[in-house]
Structure formats: C-alpha cells, structure tokens
C-alpha cells in the first residue's frame, strides 16, 4: 500500500537505522533552530548543503524527499511573494500598472531569507524524518516523555491521514471520470478542499468505530507502547552535530567562504 506519511518502509535500509529514533528527531532541530534565530542566508545554505550530502551518504530517499518538497514550494512562495512590496525604503524596481508598485531591497532580502528558512527547515526535517518508520517515530515521542494522551491522539490522527488521503484521491478520480477537468495546481487544490470536507464527515463515523473497537479490547483511555534505550553512540552523534553547528556559527566566516567560492567561479 502506498503511504503518504513521510516515513520509511520497514524494509528500506538507511545508514541511520541503528541510531535511536529520538536522536534522529533531535538532529534536525540542532540544524534548524540556529538558522531560525540568526539572520544569515549563508548559514541556512550551509545547513541545506550539509543535509543534502548527509542524505546521499546515509542513503536517505532523496528523490522522494524532493518530490514532496516540490508540493510545498507554491505555499512558501505565497507566504513570501508580497513582502518585497511593503517592507523597506530602498526602491530597486518600480512597476506601473495603473498604480505604482515599488519593490524594496530590504523586503526582497527578507523575503529571500524567509523563503530559505521555510524551505531549509522543511528539507532538513523531511530528510531526517524519512529515516524513521512510523513505529520509530511514535517510540521517539514516547522516549521524549510526552504525555500519553498527546501521543495517543497523535497516533489516531496519523492513522487517519492516509485513510482520508486515499478517500480524497478516490473522490477526485470519480469526479474526473465524470468529466471534471482539473487543469492546474490551484484547481486541484480547490477540488481537494471540497473532497476533504466530505471525507472528514465520513471519517467522524470511522473514528467512532475505532473507539468502539478499542473499547471491545479493554481501552480505558490510556495507550501504552514499548521503547528501547539510548546508547553512547547516539549521544556521540548528537555531540558531533552540535559541534558542527557551533563551529559554523562561531568559528567559520561563512560569508567570506561563500564569496571566495563565488569569486573562484566568476573568475
């Protein structure tokens, strides 16, 4: 069965398989948190490049990750595209379409920074999460000592994502077979929205059934799952990532480095 959740199939092998799932969840945070706090496009680019090469070495499903990110890019553009028009003072371009639209230099660099931040965070999280199976992901949440009601609700929520997605797909296919033409991305999104509403109502009934089936097996409101221990090697990996991050922030002048590299190519 095709799943839409960003998790690894149990049979897929990656070099990260032996690393504790909790560590695999923490690793992307070590990369992402600094570039959310520091306004540096060089830092974001460096983390994206490191994650890219790390994904290749660790045999993570890079093509799948990229194809999923591709779907999110229009949303990121939507969030960032208007910023250059209303933030800043230095006009770098002027559009006359009945009214005057100014594009500001400060706004443009802020939009680019925001775009890179969202894109980078998505790419890094997706890359590391793609090494986790669904059960490893839940195990990690448990090891992080999140409340059981939260983990339980999360499990049930995740349970329904592929189910709702598959019914959505069927509704759209049925509409297409009856002549509905979905020609572009926005129409597809709109059609998905309508189908999603219908699926949600249908799945309310489903969740009732799931609750009944849990009750039949003695459910009293608590879900319990097994988890394994974190090893020294896992801690070492965490420390290595921390060391890389701190070095990139404090010891290496990334701006100088990138400018040097670019100068090499231009020359």
């Amino acid at each position: 069965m095709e799943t839409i959740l960003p998790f690894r199939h149990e049979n897929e092998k990656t070099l990260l398989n032996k690393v504790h799932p909790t560590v695999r969840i923490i690793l992307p945070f070590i990369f992402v948190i600094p570039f959310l706090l520091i306004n540096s496009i060089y830092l974001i680019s460096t983390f994206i490049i490191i994650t890219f090469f790390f994904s290749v070495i660790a045999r993570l499903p890079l093509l799948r990750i990229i194809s999923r990110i591709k779907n999110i890019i229009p949303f990121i553009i939507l969030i960032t595209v208007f910023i250059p028009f209303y933030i800043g003072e230095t006009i770098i371009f002027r559009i006359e379409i009945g009214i005057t639209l100014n594009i500001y230099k400060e706004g443009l660099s802020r939009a680019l920074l925001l775009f890179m931040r969202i894109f980078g965070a998505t790419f890094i999280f997706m890359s590391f999460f793609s090494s986790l199976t669904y059960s490893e992901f839940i195990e990690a949440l448990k090891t992080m000592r999140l409340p059981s009601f939260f983990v339980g609700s999360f499990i049930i929520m995740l349970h329904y994502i592929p189910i709702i997605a598959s019914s959505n797909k069927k509704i759209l296919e049925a509409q297409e077979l009856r002549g509905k033409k979905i020609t572009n991305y926005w129409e597809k999104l709109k059609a998905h929205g309508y189908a999603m509403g219908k699926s949600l109502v249908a799945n309310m009934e489903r969740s009732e059934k799931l609750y009944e089936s849990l009750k039949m097996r003695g459910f009293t409101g608590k879900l319990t799952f097994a988890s394994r221990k974190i090893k020294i090697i896992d801690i070492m990996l965490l420390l290595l990532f921390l060391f890389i991050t701190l070095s990139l922030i404090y010891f290496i002048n990334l701006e100088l480095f990138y400018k040097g590299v670019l100068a090499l190519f231009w020359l």
Partner: protein
Amino acid sequence: MAVDVENLNFSYKNGFSVQDLSLKIEENSIYALTGNNGSGKTTLLKLLVGLLKPKSGTIKIFDEVLTRNRKQLWKVRQKIGFLFQNPDDQLFAPTIEEDVGFGARNLKLEQEEVKERVEWALKAVNLFDYKEYSPFNLSWGQKKRASLAGLLVMNPKLLILDEPFANLDFKSIYSHLEIFEKLRKEERMTILFTTHNLFFVENWAEKILVLNSGKGIFEGDPKEGLNHPEVKKILGSYDEIHKLIQKNQEKD
C-alpha cells in the same frame, strides 16, 4: 449456549428498530446472520457486545446476562472477539505487534505472557514475519488477518465477524476460512458472522438468521432458509440473477 437472545427490542432516533428478536447459538457452531443492507445485522451485533443498549429483552453470552455494569461488561467482552468489517477501524498502533498486543495488555497479563500470546496469534493468522510492519504497509487481506490476531490474543470463546469475506480475493477467502476452521476445531470457538454472500450462508453456516427491517424472518437450517418463499423474496437468489443474464444473452 454461546448466545441466547430473547425478545430483544431496540430503536434508533431515526426510527429504525430491532423488534422482538430471539436467537440461540450453540457453542462451537457456525451461525450466519444475513439480510439486505439496512436490515439490522450490524445493529444486532453491536447489541450483542454491549455497544448499544437494548430497550428491552435479555442477552446471555455463555450463560452470563449482559448488563450495563462496566465490570460485568468487560468480563463478558473478554469472551468475545469482534472483527469489524473494515480493518482500518481496528488497527491503530504503530506496528502490528503493538496492535495485536493491545487487548492482551488490557487484560493485565504478565509481559512474558503477552509476548507469548502475540506470537501465537500472529502465527495463527500467518503474519508472524510482518510483526514489525506498520499497518499502513499491509494489504487489505493482511490487515484483516492482523485485526483477527488482535482479537485472538484475548483468547475469546465467541468470534463475531462482520462481513469477514468482503473485499477479499478467492485465495484470501480460502486462507481466512482455513484460519476460522482451525480456530473452531482446535480452540473450540463459536463463530457468528454476517454476510450478504449466499454461498457462505448455504455452505459454511450451520444455522442462519435472516433479518428484514429489524425483524427476524427465519431462523434455522441454511438450505431450508434459502428455499423459504419469504426469504427468497427478500434476499433474491442466484437463480434469479442467472435467469436475468440468460434472458439478456438470448436477446443479443
């Protein structure tokens, strides 16, 4: 007696009701519940396991009267394995092993025994090699078997199967039937199942109950039931479908 129902009455707010229904299911037998869509099959099953509260009448499961008392209800439910028609309504845990062990852990068994029961149940449904799989990565038939394993760990005496063969290919039907028969013979389980498929009514069940609009219109021998004029009128038959096809072929 595995199930003994007398003068059961129930009604939904929308007006549909189960009226004055009685049935008896002997231990270790196979009992089929059939009827058209909306005839009340699933409602009856839910009443039998205490998911719905009857208006009047008595339900006895292995001589124990079903009441609304929580403790007593849980005691009765431990004897019943209810297999939902759609396995996605049952499987919820991250792995098959975790899902199958859910019921056993709720029985407050020792960890070692939970492990043993899970292993036994997974082997009984031929899914032991898939124990670390997520339910998302199984086929429909495998999911159905995994759901069944989730019931077997609780060691039920009565298996209630809602449309157990729906959406299954012939090979899967064969393997499911093999499992059910093995459970009946080796574990002495009683099987109550609902179906629209007259083949299973005629060939697998030992006794049937035909429902129509919440009323029982026939209880007894399957062959006799399928030849009953009122049952024929309500359920239709293979003969009628066959005749229709032949008639159309002749016209062509």
